[in-house]
């Protein structure tokens, strides 16, 4: 290698290294600044539910519960819709409709979280409340629908998260479906398969990548802050009810960070941030791993 080229490589390498340093820096900073809480509470932090900053008691179970529960519910709603969109755009729709539909779903992803939150407070929550009020008494006895109908709560949060996650999952699922060679579908049709059967076969070939797409959506849902904070009700409790106001990890950081009056309180909030960081990291890693292995499995993309 010529020496000016080496200089060039080192020169831009410094900037590239900055990216690595930032990620490492985030992990190290969060771990360091949550040390007080990590030491004081250990694993009990995540096993207890009493969040009482005044008394100096910090149990974060309701937050991790709220984050996981709302994200899982959002996935249950969003996944069928997102896959349906991906299939419709990549397999079914007429060619002229493709670009406009892609633009509209991208728009869904581009709308800022705070706008979804504002819409959630003033439009979605009253609708959810009305639906909750019309729920027949017989169903209200189920644990899933128990409690007074506030409007704000788990259901509203899950719905708004689902809307926000759909475009991410469907975009990746669409890319993944594209990697399945056209010849496979042609073969299926040649054997007399119906449209559904041919597409089902293509989706089966792409299953690893599709699971990756769903997990990517999960990672998005876990970290989503503003919209959820505005509609979930911000009440730290572990409840199964869809109507119950609950709380998430991101929401408690957003609401209480500026109020953290002492070092232990601050440290507890940063520990929640640390765990959120680690969870989303793992979910994204798995998701990328799946999508990547899918892309490698099917080298026929160029040929197709």
């Amino acid at each position, binding site marked *: 290698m010529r020496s*000016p080229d080496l*200089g060039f*490589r080192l020169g*831009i*390498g410094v*900037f*590239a290294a900055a*990216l*690595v340093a*930032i*990620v490492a*820096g*985030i992990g190290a*900073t*969060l771990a360091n600044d949550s040390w007080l809480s990590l030491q004081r509470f250990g694993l009990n932090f995540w096993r207890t539910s009493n969040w009482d900053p005044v008394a100096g008691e910090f149990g974060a179970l309701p937050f991790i519960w709220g984050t996981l529960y709302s994200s899982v519910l959002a996935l249950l709603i969003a996944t*069928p819709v997102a896959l*349906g*969109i991906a299939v*419709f755009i990549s397999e*079914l729709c007429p060619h002229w409709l493709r670009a406009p*539909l892609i*633009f509209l*779903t991208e*728009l*869904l992803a*581009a*709308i*800022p*979280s*705070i*706008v*979804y939150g*504002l*819409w959630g407070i*003033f*439009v979605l929550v009253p609708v959810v409340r009305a639906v909750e009020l019309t729920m027949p008494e017989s169903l209200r006895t189920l644990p899933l629908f128990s409690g007074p109908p506030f409007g704000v709560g788990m259901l509203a949060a899950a719905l708004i998260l689902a*809307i926000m996650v*759909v475009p991410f999952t*469907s975009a990746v699922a669409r890319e993944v479906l594209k990697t399945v060679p056209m010849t496979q579908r042609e073969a299926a049709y040649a054997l007399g398969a*119906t*449209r*559904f*059967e041919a*597409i089902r076969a293509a989706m089966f070939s792409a299953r690893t990548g599709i699971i990756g797409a769903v997990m990517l959506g999960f990672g998005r849902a*876990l*970290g989503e*802050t*503003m919209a959820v904070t*505005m509609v979930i009700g911000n009440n730290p409790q572990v409840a199964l009810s869809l109507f119950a106001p609950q709380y998430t990890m*991101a929401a408690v*950081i957003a609401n209480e960070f*500026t109020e953290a009056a002492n070092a232990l309180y601050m440290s507890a909030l*940063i520990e929640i*941030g640390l765990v*959120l*960081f680690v969870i989303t*990291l793992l979910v*994204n*890693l798995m998701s*990328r791993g799946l999508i990547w292995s899918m892309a490698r499995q099917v080298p026929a993309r160029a040929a197709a």
Partner: protein
Amino acid sequence: MKARRTPPARKVLSALFVAACGLAVIAALIPLAFVLFFVISQGVQSLNLDFFLNNPRPVGEVGGGMANAIVGTLILTGLAAALAVPIGILSGVYLSEYRGSRFASTVRFAADTLNGVPSIVIGVFAYAVVVLPLGHFSTLAGGFALGIMMIPIIARTTEELLLLVPNALREGALALGATRARAVFSVIVPAALPGIITGVVLALARIAGETAPLLFTSFNNGFFSTSLTQPISSITVQVFTYAISPYEDWHRQAWAGALVLVTIVLLCSMAARIAAARVARIRGQ
């Protein structure tokens, strides 16, 4: 041999599946339509000249606006771009020039990881490294947080676009005796520049709509400020403050702010789309 007809049950199932996929598209477009409808109809009612020219006023006093927040958002995104554009583009160049190297995979991995880090966590990080040492909330801290979020987007977009530049261009430059740096900065990057600029604009639009990383970095400011070391208002944080307030008038202001945000996003994505189409047409000829 008689050709066997597809049994009706299978045909029906197939038709149902096609219908279900169509319904999924409609199910996603309904919320989009409702969000846009409410933002536009509610926002237009409260959007007026005062909104752009005045600062927030106390509850009950009419004529308040978000002039300080609009300027704040501009300054914050400007700072973010100043941090993220050089780092993002140069690491993108590294990723595409040395794509096979082990360090490049590490950097790519770091970029994807950073892209997935929740924005609220970025806010906590910026608080720890900028707000704590300075001792107070500041524009710098907010710009830093937004910049961190922008870096991986720009890096990956730049990498993708540079990989599209035909190899013959690079070979031509090198054959003329250019150094690698010369080939990259005089030939390869300029060839991809329209796309890179589009990517930067899209990243800016996304960053301008962020709230969570600003809550405890740039915080909020009821007054007009352009100071980098003081807290500063932003459209998003101001919308949040107004949205969760109990006052009717502030709710109207929040909708107006949301309309401004959505307009910015829409304009940027349409401009990017048009630019991309134009580039594709020029390439095609």
